[in-house]
């Protein structure tokens, strides 16, 4: 083997240079510079004040356990809000999903309009909904329940109508052939195939709602979030720490139970 041949074997073949990747990279780096400028984020300022940040953290790590008696009833209210919001939102989503599934409602205009409405509702974050409902129904858990119900609706309806559209069309055809009406088709052909999915999606929405409901109180929509705001405002970080630890424990616990039951459902 001559020397040049050997060199050729040792080096890898050249890759084609991709201009599109270069453009993406430029856009990306430009984006970082622009967004750093717009948001005025400077790591220097962050590290200069880092002691303050860790100070809050350290104080939170020394929770005030005597506060637990005040926290638990509020936590129960928070869980109640999450349950009610999930139930109301899921019931509405159940009916709505049947109306926008193209294998049940054949009218494209109806499903189209209803879908656009659904997609718009899905884009509004739950805390914003909370802020709006506080303006409408006043400060209190009702605003939180309504906000959670709409957020649940957005989560469940999309997953559920997709599940309905992927069912086996056989049973529907069989029932149509023996002359069943729409309601009978839904009850005997569609629901048996999708009920487990529906329950699983409701549980999933419930997990998300428990997280969301813990902070809704911050804007006045009931539950434990209100005390989060109060303790933070008076710099009582020991109490804040208690609240956060309780929230984390409950969230992790509910996530665990709900994901286990979802697994059991899907067996």
């Amino acid at each position, binding site marked *: 083997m001559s020397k040049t041949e050997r060199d050729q074997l040792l080096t890898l073949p050249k890759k084609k240079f991709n201009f599109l990747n270069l453009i993406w990279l430029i856009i990306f780096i430009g984006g*970082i510079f622009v967004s750093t400028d717009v948001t005025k984020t400077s790591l220097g*300022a*962050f590290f200069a004040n880092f002691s303050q940040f860790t100070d809050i953290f350290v104080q939170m790590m020394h929770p005030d356990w005597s506060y637990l008696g005040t926290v638990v009833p509020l936590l129960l209210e928070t869980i109640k*809000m999450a349950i009610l919001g999930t139930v109301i939102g899921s019931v509405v989503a159940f009916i709505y999903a049947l109306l926008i599934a193209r294998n049940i409602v054949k009218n494209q205009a109806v499903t189209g309009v209803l879908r656009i409405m659904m997609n718009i509702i899905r884009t509004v974050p739950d805390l914003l909904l909370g802020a709006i409902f506080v303006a409408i129904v006043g400060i209190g858990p009702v605003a939180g*329940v309504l906000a959670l119900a709409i957020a649940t609706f957005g989560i469940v309806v999309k997953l559920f109508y997709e599940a309905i559209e992927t069912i086996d069309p056989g049973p529907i055809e069989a029932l149509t052939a023996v002359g069943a009406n729409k309601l009978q088709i839904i009850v005997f052909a569609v629901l048996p195939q999708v009920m487990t999915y529906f329950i699983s999606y409701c549980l999933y929405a419930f997990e998300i709602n428990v997280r969301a409901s813990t902070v809704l109180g911050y804007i006045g929509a009931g539950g434990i979030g209100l005390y989060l705001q109060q303790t933070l405002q008076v710099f009582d970080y020991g109490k804040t720490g208690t609240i*956060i630890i309780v929230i984390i424990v409950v969230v*992790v616990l509910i996530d665990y139970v709900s994901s286990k039951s979802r697994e059991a459902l899907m067996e």
Partner: protein
Amino acid sequence: MDTTMKKLPPKPVETKKRLLHWAVAVITAALIVWSCTGIDFGGIKETAGQIAGAIFGGIFHPDWSYVYNGTGEDLVSQLWETVCIAFLGTFISAIISLPFAFWAAHTKHKKWYVSRTGKIVLAIIRSFPEIVLALMFIKAVGPGSAAGVLALGFHSVGMLAKLFSEAIENLEDGPNEAVTAVGGSKTNIVMFSTLPNLLPALISNTLYRFDVSIRSASILGLVGAGGIGYPLIIALQYRQWNRVGIILLGIILMVIVIDGISGWIRKKLV
């Protein structure tokens, strides 16, 4: 016709399963009833319908003068700030997430407890409320969008590192073994087989998180961490429904556009 034909045969009964189903149904019903008890539904304001009407009226007659007026306090500049908060926050969290992801991926460790502890740490980060994090950063760097960026950057690690670690767990061993077989070192393995195979999943997950962050960035302003949430809560407090309407329209439009763009890029990637 014989009447017996009309009746369906009885379903096979599994007593144990049926009992379990009834038990679950009763517990669920009891929970729902319990949750109705403590919540005071009587306190709804009489003006509720009027205000709801006013907000809807505001959405249909938005305050167009607020869209752009060059002061930096208008809708377009606030939305732009929101996008920037989400962008920078996602970028920071993507960088922090990588080491966490390798920690939590069980295929990278021989000992089970290493990846298990990593997963627990990520779960705790995920359940730490975003707003509280934002408030802590406001205490550290002052109110404004920088606090929002940092809060998002740290909070997103919980979810992003989980997605990354799942991507790492799904990697095939083949390319790594091939690099080892031709005498590659540990760094060579990471550089030439792990990272190139991982990159599409990383970018796709980061883009997905960017979608979520846009929504988060639009609410962080409610507590004073920059972005569109702040003018919204002010407008709600001063009952300027036209302005509430235009801000909501702006948020909805922004979320739809960003979802569309990132969905398009993700489709191209796969």
